[in-house]
């Protein structure tokens, strides 16, 4: 009996037999870290090198750090790339898409959770099913549909802000509703009933009571959708086109990747510029992402 009780205490103290295993695990983890970080490191290093350097030796250390500023200045002054205009378009599309996705999804999820009918279950299952449909399957029908709807309503859906934002709402809603749904189920109904008795309208209950409680999961939804929308290349290419007046940063970066000439130093530097805002957002919000996911699933 005493022997049995002693065993876990030994393990907790980190006794010798496990030390070797621990070191091996740490080495493997470190190697995996390097492996996963390598593309990012290559982008950072190559954004500080010249095009000739990169072509001669794709993976290498920068020799002149001042090259980074020269690359950035070149991008900034490049009339084809037009960084500011691309940044403006990316910000407009991402911010408005995130706003409509998060507000509509949270409201829809709330209604689906609180109306326990057969139909609300079916609608929710449709959203869940929509999550597993690959984008590539629907991308061409989507374009045809956008053209038809646009012609019919007289509202241009292709090569327009409203078109791409509407498309992002459609594609982002399923996962967002799924995440909100899981979280709202854990919000006690009594809170809403108390608000009801206190004199809140339905909309008031949502905006004053439910929405503030969704804060952690709201950040999760914003970051997950933000990462994807900001970096997305294929949907903007299809809806906005590569030569349209509205161009997101990924579309603009593609401009350096010509059929005959590839300006690798500019591709790398502009990619780094494109990544920075979303990395900063992620670093600030990452604790909420984990918290939001856990809150929705196990609480």
């Amino acid at each position: 009996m005493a022997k049995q009780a002693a065993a876990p205490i030994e393990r907790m103290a980190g006794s010798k037999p496990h030390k070797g295993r621990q070191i091996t695990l740490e080495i493997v983890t470190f190697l995996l870290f390097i492996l996963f970080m390598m593309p990012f490191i290559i982008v950072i290093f190559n954004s500080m090198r010249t095009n000739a350097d990169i072509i001669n030796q794709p993976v290498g250390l920068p020799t002149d750090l001042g090259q980074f500023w020269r690359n950035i200045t070149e991008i900034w002054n490049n009339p084809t790339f037009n960084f500011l205009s691309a940044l403006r378009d990316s910000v407009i599309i991402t911010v408005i898409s995130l706003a409509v996705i998060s507000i509509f999804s949270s409201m829809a999820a709330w209604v689906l959770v609180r109306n326990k009918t057969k139909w609300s279950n079916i609608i929710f299952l449709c959203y869940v099913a929509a999550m597993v449909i690959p984008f590539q399957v629907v991308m061409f029908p989507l374009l045809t549909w956008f053209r038809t709807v646009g012609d019919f309503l007289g509202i241009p859906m292709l090569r327009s802000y409203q078109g791409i934002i509407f498309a992002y709402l459609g594609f982002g809603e399923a996962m967002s509703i799924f995440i909100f749904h899981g979280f709202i189920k854990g919000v006690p109904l009594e809170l809403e009933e108390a608000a009801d008795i206190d004199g809140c309208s339905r909309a008031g209950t949502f905006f004053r009571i439910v929405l503030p409680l969704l804060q952690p999961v709201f950040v999760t939804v914003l970051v997950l959708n933000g990462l994807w929308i900001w970096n997305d290349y294929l949907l903007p290419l299809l809806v906005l086109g590569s030569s349209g007046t509205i161009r997101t940063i990924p579309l603009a970066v593609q401009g350096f990747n010509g059929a005959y000439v590839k300006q690798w130093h500019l591709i790398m530097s502009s990619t780094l510029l494109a990544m920075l805002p979303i990395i900063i957002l992620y670093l600030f919000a990452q604790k909420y992402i984990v918290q939001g996911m856990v809150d929705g699933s196990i609480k």
Partner: protein
Amino acid sequence: MASVKLTDVKKIYDNKVTAVHDFNLEIKDKEFVVFVGPSGCGKSTTLRMVAGLEDISEGTLEIDGEVVNDLQPKDRDIAMVFQNYALYPHMTVYDNIAFSLRLKKVPEDEVYERVTNAAQILGITEYLTRKPRALSGGQRQRVAIGRAMVRNAKVFLMDEPLSNLDAKLRNQMRAEIILLRQKLDTTFIYVTHDQTEAMTLGDRIVIMKDGYIEQVGTPQEVFDTPVNLFVAGFIGSPQMNFLKAKLLQEGSGYSVEILGAKIPLNEDQNAVLKGKNIGSQDIILGVRPEHTTVLFDRADNAIECTINVNEMMGSELHLHLSSANDDRIIVRLPTVDLTKEQRNSLAYGSRMYITFPAKVMHLFDPETERSLIDG
């Protein structure tokens, strides 16, 4: 302050389950009524119908003479305290209490006055700037009561407000609710599954089972004259003992025969039985543990029992006995009256004798389970 009248109120859920059957009750202005019963008896559903959180399937609900069936909860002028407090977690205690007043666009000076006044009464002034998660269970419950208090509502509803608290705090809060009631002087409807709460708080108690009202009466009435076996067993702690016995009609009088003991009924009981034209029959005899006298020696009309369990409660002993009929009997025995020898003799397996006077006996029909005298 208002009266509440429920007439033939029914609650039928979508799956055809009837949670509340033909509920009829008139609650007078400033009365404190307690709905009590086991889980699933429909007490909370009835309260929620009064609050407007559940639709009323059939019947009418009137508050102050006005039918409010179709009114939204916010338009019924009621205040409610929930079992799990339902405090808004993202607001401070002050904002929680002030929430309903601000929705009503009450001037901020008056909001301040009413909130601080309620906080003072409830002793939570120093916590007004805290968020609910930084409060203990008892403090949260006070905030929940404060939130209901400031509204000066016509009817104050409480849905098992003390069941999340530990036993000591529950007793303390129970006393505070009694004080609060005196200060507020309004109509209260209180739901609980705890008969002690019901007995101590209520002017009248509504005992419910399976969606039906079993009995309505003052605490004394339901304790002294339970109309059926359920009420008799539910009210009182430890619960009433039920023994198999026979009612005998001999000439103009009645007596109860149990295990050789024969206890004649008193004049009032005889008159009621005779009035109902009841003859000799099998009965279930109900006797409360505190109404049973324990004898250490054999005596006339005493029932012999064996001790199964001896529970020491401090000021009294709870003896769990079994009779020759295999009836389980609990007896309360004040320890102050016992000598050391007597206490030592109350060991497992020891024999002892119990007796009780006719006036404390409750007679129930085994078929209908209704009281033969009080029903």
